[in-house]
Each structure stands twice: as C-alpha cells, then as structure tokens.
C-alpha cells in the first residue's frame, strides 16, 4: 500500500500540527486552569487546589444546575425518541417525491442557526404568543411558558429531532420492506411484525440517536440562555456566567471539564452497549 514512508506524514502534517496545537494544548491548559486557585481581588493564582471541584460537587447551587441539566437532557432524549422514531418509520413508508420533500423539511432546520430557532420559540411561547392564544381559545390559558423548563425542553426537542430521525431513518433503509410484509403473510399481527421485525432494526439507530441528542442537549447553550432566562441555568450557561460575569475562570474551567468527562463517559458506555448488542446478535 504505502509507497514512501514520508509521503503520508507530509500530507497530514499541516492538519496534525493545527489539531495538536489547537485541540490538545488548549484542553490540557484548561485542565491545569481548573486546579489553579482563584481570588476575587487578585484573580487567578499560581498554586494548585481541588477547591473548585470540591465546591461544584458539594454546593447545592451547582448540584441543582447539574441535576436540571441531566433531567432536561434525558427528557429531551426520551421525547425525541418517542417522536423521531415513529416519524422516521412513517417517512420510510412514504412514496417517492413526498419522502424526500418531508425528509428535507425535517433535517433542513439543522442548517438554520440555533439562535434563530430559539428566538422563534420565545415568540411562540411568550405570554402573548400563538401557543397562549390557542390555549386562551380553549379556555385553558394563559399559562406561563417562557422562562420555564417546559420551554427549554420544547425548544430542545425541536432542535434535536433531526439528530434522532437521521440515524433511525438510516437504520430503516437497511430493512427490506418485504420482510415486514412476509411477517404479515405468515400470520403475524401488525403489532408483532412491528415489534419483532422493525424494532430490532430501529433500536440500533435509536441508540446512536439518543447518544447524540443527550450529549448535545446536556451541553446546549443558546436554548437555555434564551428560553430559560437568567434564573433557569443549565451547565453551559453556568460556565458562560462563571467566565463572563463572575470572571472566575478556574471555576468555569472545572465545570467545563466535568461536562467534557460526563460526555466521554456516556460515549464509552454507549460503545460498550453497542458491542454487547452486536455480540448478542451474533449469538
């Protein structure tokens, strides 16, 4: 395969230098920063401490934000799975022009800035917004939606839905539609065919979709920032405030490192789960 041993290194060297310098080095610097002392009068010190991690993991103010982040990310993942998987299945059974048109409608918003989509939801959910107007007509409103956890979850589901539809759709593409028909003709009920034929195929897409959705929701910034207001913080908006308002960089760095580690742990657990599934499938 290789012709001269130097060639590949020449080709990758610009990228390698850039990525080593701007991915590894800054991450290492941030880990170091998170152990540095901080004083509100003198700023960042030069001695090391575990105090920031200690405080983040014991102070109820921080724990509440982490708990909210996990809870909302989990809820978003669950809702995305409940909406995204059936939607992908329905899409896969559509006829040719409609199928690509609606697939485009669902994944297209991915290309629109999150700020724009969050702003759209803040208009819809505001006290004079369309949702409250509709609830008013049904004599159910007005309900305070904006700056609540409900608003954050609704907008997160909206932004994350394509990340769930895409992997499930991809998994369904590998399923021959005739297999489901065959199950029916062999006497399986619709539900049995769905459970025994379609679900196993969907579940792998569902797993990878859930991973992406959970990871992105847990570190989402614009949506809690615009729809949660100043009071309802999530991990990302907390880090931003520590950096930009408190100016306590070491504390912000410690929280960011915890977010990164949590992300990597979930990623590894997911890989384990997929491997275990594959082993079971192979018998």
């Amino acid at each position: 395969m290789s012709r001269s041993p130097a060639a590949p290194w020449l080709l990758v060297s610009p990228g390698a230098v850039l990525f080593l310098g701007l991915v590894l080095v800054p991450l290492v610097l941030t880990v170091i920063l998170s152990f540095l002392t901080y004083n509100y009068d003198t700023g960042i010190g030069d001695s090391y401490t575990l105090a920031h991690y200690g405080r983040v993991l014991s102070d109820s103010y921080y724990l509440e934000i982490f708990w909210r982040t996990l809870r909302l990310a989990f809820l978003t993942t669950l809702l995305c799975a409940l909406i995204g998987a059936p939607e992908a299945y329905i899409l896969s059974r559509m006829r040719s022009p409609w199928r690509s048109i609606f697939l485009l409608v669902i994944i297209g918003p991915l290309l629109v800035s999150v700020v724009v989509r969050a702003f759209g939801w803040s208009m819809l959910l505001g006290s004079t917004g369309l949702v409250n107007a509709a609830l008013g007509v049904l004599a159910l409103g007005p309900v305070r939606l904006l700056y609540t956890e409900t608003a954050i979850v609704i907008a997160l589901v909206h932004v994350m839905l394509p990340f769930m539809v895409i992997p499930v759709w991809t998994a369904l593409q590998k399923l021959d539609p005739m297999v489901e028909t065959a199950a029916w003709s062999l006497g399986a009920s619709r539900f049995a065919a769905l459970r025994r034929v379609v679900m196993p195929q969907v579940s792998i897409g569902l797993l990878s979709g859930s991973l992406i959705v959970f990871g992105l929701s847990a570190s989402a910034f614009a949506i809690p920032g615009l729809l949660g207001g100043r009071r309802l913080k999530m991990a990302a908006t907390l880090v931003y405030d520590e950096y930009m308002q408190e100016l306590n960089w070491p504390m912000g760095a410690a929280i960011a490192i915890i977010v990164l580690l949590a992300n990597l742990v979930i990623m590894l657990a997911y890989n384990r789960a997929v491997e275990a599934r594959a082993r079971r499938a192979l018998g």
Partner: protein
Amino acid sequence: MQKNGPLALLFHTAVIAFVLAPLVVICLVAFTPENTLTIPTTRFSLRWFRAILDYPDFITAFGNSLWLATIAATLSVAIAVPSALAIDRYRFFGRDALNALFLSPLIIPHLVLGVAFLRLFALIGVTGSFTWLVLTHVIVITPYVLRLVIAALSGLDRSAEQAAMTLGASRWTVFRRITLPMILPGVTGGWLLAFINSFDELTMSIFVTSPATVTLPVRMYMYATESIDPMMAAVSALMIALTAIAMLVLDRVFGLDKILVGEK
C-alpha cells in the same frame, strides 16, 4: 409497499407543523408594521428590514461572519483534502490516532472548546484576533469536510489513476487532473457544509470573539438577551431565507440527504 394509515398521517402532520412553526412565525412577524412582536393580519410592512440598515452592528457582524466562514471553510478544505488522502491511501504509524484527533471536535462539546481556546489565547496574548478566530472555526468544521472527502475517496475507482501513472504522469498531475476532479462533489459539498457550520456557530464563538470580530449569531444572541423587537425577527427571517437558498442549491447539486444523512 405498505401505506401509512390515517393515524400515522395525522402524527406526521403534527410533527411537520411542530418543525415548521417557529420558522413560519418568524417570517410572519418580520413583516409587522407594529413596534411589538405581533403577527401582522391586515397590513404588512418592510420597516423592520429597513431598520436593519440603520443598525450597523448587524451589518458589521454579518460581514464578519461571511469573511470568517469563507476563509475558514477554504482553509479547512486545504487541510482536509491532503489529510484524507493520507488516511485513505496509506497505512502509517499513528494513522488511527490522527484520525481520532481530527474527528475529536465532533465529540468535544463546543462549550468546552470555547473555554479551552479562551485560555490558550489569553496565555499567548491573542484574544480578539481575527486570524486565531478563523483557526478555531477551522478546528470545528474540518471533521465534516474530512468525513465527506474520505467517503468520496473510498468510493473512487482507482484504475484511471493507475493508467495515468503508467503513462508517466507525475503524482501531482495525477492528483490535479484525475483524483481532484473525481472527488470534487465531495470536496464542494464539504466546503458548503463547513461554511454553513462556521456561519451558524455560536457556543464556541461567544467565548473567543471580541467586539471587533463579533459574528452574526453571537450578535443576535446578545441582542435577543437584551431587547426583543421585530428587528430580531427581520434579521432571523433573512437568515432563514439565505439558508433556504443555500439548501436548495446544495440539494440540486449534491442531494442534501446524501450530505446530511451520510453516504451508505
């Protein structure tokens, strides 16, 4: 082929309405003649679009974003194409580690990248520099380009390249005249995807932009947290329109589902 039942179609309609609702509302509110965020019913007005022209902050930020995304996407392609060639064509020490390093920005939250860059820039004294901002965007968007170019390369029929080699063409000529034209759809698609991702990036940029280099999403975020008036809707509507045009072009030329869903 099985058909979707009425219940399934009802569900589908609800999902589509949910997906489109915020975008439609923005586009309607943008045309309001009022001072508040209302959906115009009788009169439509372009006053809030005109207001953007008198608010230089958005114009400057738009210019910054356009430059930033263009330079970053181009640099990213310049780095990703040779790297993809090396990763696809050679087996060398550290290949897997490098591949993982190149794709790592996909699994590191942008928030973490943002604070990491901020720390580095503060230490070496380049905070607020446009050049370094470009490099941070290159890091974030290169994984997308790399994946598309590698996919294009691995689907390539090598016989034309081998024929040219046998006929005495130099490696550079083979690359320029044969390989590059053949992977061009992947490269262009990668550039566009990189451009859009760079143009829309908020979470990392908010940490590393200065007032002089502020990008459009950052400016819009700041604006939306401070005051909400229909100008924000007008700017958003313009962004939606631009994205829709880009999407149509992307879809006509490459097939959007191929780029976003990935090749199989």
